[in-house]
């Protein structure tokens, strides 16, 4: 047991970088204050979202109480939180069990595979418990207070909370381990990881659409009535979802009304959870380590002839092009980077396309939009420009450009590539990613509203120009505070505050710019607004370019 606790502590320490954090407290105050700032600001930023969630849950319960349907409250909360645990768990499990390199270091030590698997799982579980408690405790309290439940409920509710993340995560981990050990997967793990994440997103989008269609079909009704209709009119649907989470029935039977049978139901839940955990450990012992060792055998390329090598090496290339090619290859071939930096430009237009298809717009509505576009093209143009700039800000390609290189960044730091070539190469890869988003959007929109050539040209050019200040700001931030010390590429983007800083400041900037230019266009002239937009964007771009160009070479000495 002591070994298990020590190993779990080790994994948590490794994933959070606690030792380095405490080392910096005494030895590197500057780095320590940066880490401390992140540690404080992130929870503070989440407080409003938490209160909104609690308010939503109270409203839901009150609505259900009015129509005497509170029996679905607990199971709905349980299903919702289990769903979130599963969705977020995919990347977390892949990250801890497959991206992290610490397992390789432990394999040779006299520690049983079972202990490593359990400890790794426990290191995930601790954070998931915090997450589940934050979301499920309000649900339990709201129901308990509302129904006037006593101590028995509190004890059983605590037991349910203890099983909540454990059950779905055990089964999900076992499933991932089974898929990752498949012989067909060998050498294609990167590809498979991308598929996993896309599946998770499809799941989220699917649920959102279901929710969206319910909302749109009950338009213009009170919020509480809407929630009630959502649940009561869809009792069968809730039941169907319940079949995917059968444990939600046990939770409902166990906690809705306290009887002697409640203990039996909750005990059954504990038993199923324990069996699931045991199943995960069993699968892990059988397949995890073998798949990990065989996974090291990366997919090999065929042997090239001298002529083929010569052809590939080709002519002398430009420094900016070399940086660009390297950056693009890393973006496209590293699953975590692909998912975080590239997939958004495919997914968002896809969501737009599907939501427009689901919206069931009447011919009158479509004609109304087209008429509006003919009358006020500037509004639609700025909407598209804003949307295109959004890709520049959210893809965070430049905001993590140095961070993504991690410990291999020594290479791009010692090579004699000028600052201007570094800027061009790294910004170009971000622009390519953004252009992909623009292209996907334009194709999607084409089916609903044919755009004029002027709109297409104007929005594409202004979308790209308008995002340049954000891209260069991202580069500036990452140049000044790169996150290079990671053992798992996930940290380079997920634990990187540069992404959030660029996103918030970038989005604030673009909203302000479009608002001001839009007002100018409305009150003065649309062409004046476009001109002002372009001039402001170019001035900021040039200012950032000059600043980065001046400082980059020296900054590379001090990473």
């Amino acid at each position, binding site marked *: 047991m002591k070994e298990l606790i020590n190993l779990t502590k080790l994994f948590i320490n490794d994933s959070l970088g606690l030792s380095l954090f405490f080392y*910096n407290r005494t030895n590197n105050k500057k780095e320590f204050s940066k880490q401390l700032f992140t540690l404080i600001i992130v929870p503070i930023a989440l407080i409003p979202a938490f209160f909104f969630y609690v308010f939503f849950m109270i409203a839901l319960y009150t609505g259900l109480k009015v129509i005497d349907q509170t029996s679905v409250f607990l199971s709905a909360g349980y299903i919702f939180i289990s769903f979130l645990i599963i969705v977020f768990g995919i990347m977390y499990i892949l990250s801890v069990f497959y991206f992290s390199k610490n397992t390789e270091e432990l394999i040779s030590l006299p520690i049983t595979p079972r202990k490593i698997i359990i400890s790794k799982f426990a290191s995930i579980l601790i954070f998931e418990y915090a997450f589940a408690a934050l979301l499920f405790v309000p649900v339990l309290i709201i129901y308990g207070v509302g129904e006037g439940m006593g101590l028995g409920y509190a004890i059983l509710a605590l037991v349910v909370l203890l099983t909540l993340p454990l059950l779905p995560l055990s089964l999900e981990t076992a499933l991932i381990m089974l898929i990752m050990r498949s012989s067909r997967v060998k050498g294609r793990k990167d590809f498979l990881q991308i598929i996993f994440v896309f599946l998770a997103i499809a799941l989220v989008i699917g649920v959102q659409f279901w929710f969206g269609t319910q909302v749109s079909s009950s338009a213009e009704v009170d919020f509480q009535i809407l929630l009630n209709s959502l649940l009561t009119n869809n009792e069968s649907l809730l039941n169907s979802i319940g079949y995917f989470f059968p444990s939600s029935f046990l939770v409902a039977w166990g906690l809705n009304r306290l009887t002697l049978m409640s203990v039996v139901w909750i005990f059954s839940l504990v038993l199923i959870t324990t069996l699931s955990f045991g199943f995960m450990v069993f699968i892990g012992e059988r397949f995890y380590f073998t798949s990990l060792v065989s996974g090291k055998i990366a*997919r090999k390329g065929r042997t090239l002839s001298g002529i083929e090598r010569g052809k*590939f090496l080709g002519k002398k290339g430009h420094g900016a092009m070399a940086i660009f090619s390297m950056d693009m*290859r*890393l973006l496209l071939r590293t699953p975590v980077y692909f998912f975080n930096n590239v997939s958004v430009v495919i997914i968002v237009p896809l969501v737009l396309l599907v939501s427009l298809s689901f919206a069931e717009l009447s011919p009158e509505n479509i004609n109304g939009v087209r008429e509006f576009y003919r009358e006020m093209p500037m509004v639609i143009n700025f909407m598209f420009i804003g949307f295109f700039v959004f890709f520049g800000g959210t893809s965070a390609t430049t905001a993590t450009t140095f961070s993504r290189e991690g410990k291999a960044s*020594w290479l791009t*730091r*010692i090579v004699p590539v000028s600052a201007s070539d570094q800027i061009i190469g790294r910004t170009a890869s971000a622009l390519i990613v953004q252009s992909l988003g623009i292209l996907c959007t334009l194709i999607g929109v084409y089916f609903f509203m044919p755009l004029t050539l002027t709109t297409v040209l104007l929005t594409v050019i202004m979308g790209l120009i308008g995002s340049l200040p954000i891209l260069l700001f991202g580069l500036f931030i990452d140049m000044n505070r790169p996150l290079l010390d990671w053992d798992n590429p996930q940290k380079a983007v997920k634990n990187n505050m540069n992404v959030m800083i660029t996103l918030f400041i970038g989005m604030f900037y673009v909203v302000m710019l479009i608002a001001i230019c839009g007002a100018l266009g409305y009150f003065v002239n649309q062409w004046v607004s476009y001109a002002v937009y372009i001039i402001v964007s170019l001035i900021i771009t040039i200012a950032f370019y000059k600043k980065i160009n001046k400082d980059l*070479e020296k900054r590379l000495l001090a990473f």
Partner: protein
Amino acid sequence: MLKLQQVSKTYGNKNIKAVDNISFEVNPGEIFGFVGPNGAGKTTTIKMMVSLLKPDTGKIFINGIDNQENILEAKKQFSYVPDNPELFEKIKGLEYLKFMADVYEVPTTERQKLIEKYLDIFEIKEAVNDPIGSYSHGMKQKLALVGALIHNPEVFILDEPMVGLDPKASFELKKIMREHCDQGKSVFFSTHVLDVAEKICDRIAIINKGKIIEVGTMDEIRAKAGSHESLENIFLELTE
């Protein structure tokens, strides 16, 4: 060819200097060995030479160019292979070599000739179309060496180059180092293998606790130590 003038470096808040006011010079056509115990300041010194760290004080000149003032020009003068070359794992060997050839502006006519030559010497021709992630430590080291050699640098800087190399590759590397110096260029390398340093280096510097405690040819070091013993014995006496 490579000159360090009163270079110092301190890490974090600690007042202990990792490198403490060191000065030495590497002449053209010279293999210069840099030896010292663990934590003596070897890697820190090398990182300052290759522009991965900024010295707190002092100057470093590579081929006469100040590497803090004219950074880009200084970078063109050297090649560097770290002790544990972390390379981009998702990139193929050949893509890495093309990147290096491009950034060092190796002419089209020369790049293939040089790459083929060094791939043959280090016997990794078969692996260049594979992702670097599939390479062993030694293969990564060999690829980093090929990448560093393809632009025929004025100064070749290596941190513990023999670690991870098989005996044949190690032998070939020593030969390449000598041939490189025969062209009037320089090689600077750190090592813990004192036999190698003694055999192939024209001059040696010994660093301990951030300070250079001895620098010169083997004969000069022996004369100063007043003994005819091996470098290993002198090193042990000096660093105790």
